[in-house]
């Protein structure tokens, strides 16, 4: 260790990983439905794509978790976005590509991707 900058570089690099272990109420949660139906319809690649992207982009206040069956099996894979103090947004029939689009537009830029939401789908 020759300088503080070197130490800080290690820290920045590790913090993306350790962010997973934060416990506070100000987190945006991305929840992927992962019951048997979800897994069968391809929820796992969606989950992996989301969690990788969140860590790669160093989004510190975002966590990706799974949940059981949401009860809307024919719309699986389902992704819910829960922001502190806002109403939950439910995205349906997700693919890894669509999920990344949601991450980019909704989580980072704050614009809900209407065409993928459940209200659009059911009409």
């Amino acid at each position, binding site marked *: 260790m020759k300088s503080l900058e070197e*130490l800080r570089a290690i820290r920045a690099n590790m913090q993306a990983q350790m962010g*997973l272990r934060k416990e506070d109420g100000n987190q945006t949660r991305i929840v992927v439905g992962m019951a048997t139906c979800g897994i069968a319809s391809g929820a796992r690649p969606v989950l992996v794509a989301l969690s990788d992207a969140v860590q790669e982009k160093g989004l510190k206040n975002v966590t990706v978790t799974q*949940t059981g069956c949401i009860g809307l099996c024919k719309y699986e894979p389902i992704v819910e976005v829960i922001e502190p103090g806002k109403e939950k947004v439910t995205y349906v029939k997700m693919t890894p590509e669509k999920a990344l689009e949601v991450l980019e537009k909704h989580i980072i830029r704050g614009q809900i991707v209407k065409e993928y939401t459940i209200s659009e789908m059911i009409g």
Partner: protein
Amino acid sequence: MYRSHVLVCGGTGCTSSGTPKILECLNEEINKAGLKNEVAVVQTGCHGLCALGPIVIVYPEATFYSMVKPEDVPEIVNEHLLKGRIVQRLVYDETKTEEGTVTSINETAFYKKQHRVALRNCGVINPENIDEYIATGGYEALGRVLTEYTPDQVIQMITDSGLRGRGGGGFPTGLKWKLARANEADQKYVCCNADEGDPGAFMDRSILEGDPHVVLEAMAIAGYAIGANQGYIYVRAEYPIAVKRLSIAIEQAREYGLLGKNIFGTGFDFDIELRLGAGAFVCGEETALMTSIEGNRGEPRPRPPFPAQKGLFGKPTLLNNVETYANIPQIILNGPEWFASMGTEKSKGTKVFALGGKINNTGLVEIPMGTTLREVVEEIGGGIPNGKKFKAAQTGGPSGGCIPAEHFDIPIDYDNLISIGSMMGSGGLIVMDEDNCMVDIAKFFLEFTVDESCGKCTPCRIGTKRLHEMLDKITQGQGTLEDIDKLEELCYYIKENSLCGLGQSAPNPVLSTIKYFRDEYVSHVVDKKCPAGVCKALLSYVIDPELCKGCTLCARICPNNAISGKVKEAHSIDQSKCVKCGACIEKCRFGAISKR
């Protein structure tokens, strides 16, 4: 990149209740489920809830599973990690809400009033990975100290923080550093006291196991401040996990150049070595500790000279306790004002206590100084089991004293505890209820000091033995009122004439129990009764002939054939044969047997 971290507690408590097997099963099941690249398994240090171990926490949900068995692991992997369904039956009860959801462990009664400074990383990071320590701000304080502050500025910060030694005495840490700096010498040393001899305490062990780097970083800061380039950690060999993690930590710090030559390119050199102690209580005393590091028999020597003048190998030496060091980097990073904002006027910051005895939540807790005993016992500790009444709490272990119910609302800090005849000590806090006999408690601690007295000076070697004999006589029902006075007199004599702190404080448990529970001593010598029903010699087991149905159950269970009687007729106990084991009382279905 991992989407989930599974933390498994690797502290001493959880390790002995099954962590190694759980880790093995977890890795196996995660492999089988094909989650190897998605889920990381991390072994951490102690969470403080050792009685509920082994503990497994799954992030990002922060689900807190307790008492996990290897058989439970496949369910955690297949339900929680694969499908995201929390395994409700394993969730720590206190984190379950009425709506059936799970809250953070930080919201539970046990954690809510805690404030973690010294324990901040315990149970959070992998202590065997220096990068995780760095991620939480580790070694930043050392870097800043070396590049931005002079040694005097560092000492001023520690002084301003108001930090006092956590090893028992409560000596102001900044002043200690200043004294060690003031003595010019070609060589100085920085030592860490990790001997932890108080039988009820394990906070130092938990810090070493859960966050070893914090101690290394703080010692290097201390080295810079006082002008030393060599450190020693004196740790008891009975702490194998702590020794192993410390060795790994020292190795990793050397590899990163955070120990060794020219740290942060500033020309400052500092290195640390471990010294293992055999676990004698007296070796925690500062002069005995240094004598032991030098390779001699660990016996105290008279002071002065104090270690800051002539310590290890005759050189100026700074000695601090593990928990004292664990506060240092945070003081540098957050500023002395931050630290001084916690606690009471003369006791700043937090203190870690090992809660034990008659209390629902046993374990390790870190609370701001000034928290009341009532908050600790009733809120954090969850009260006393079986609806029993609080009688007293013992702090300071064998050197301390008891706090009776009349002082239940006392804010805990160094000076308050001393003013009521106890002391902070290293942080053991043992709760006693109405079933504890105070004479018996005093006898228990004296037994310990008799064993641990090094024997160098007479008042302690012989005096503690006599104290123990007199206490034994009282518990046997053979004491007199005069004995109580003699007991007190001898206590004062030992306190004044012993060479080291062990002898000087050994009588404290006797003095404080006499002070607050004299009537209990009197019952033993005058009425020949033990009010709590503990001292066997003063008890007799009797069968009430009115209630006895002659079922013969007690006679069959008695190990010493002390009970006789015909079927369907009242039984009786032969007192000369009864060994007072209490087995009969538990067996009798008619409540006919009682203890008097």
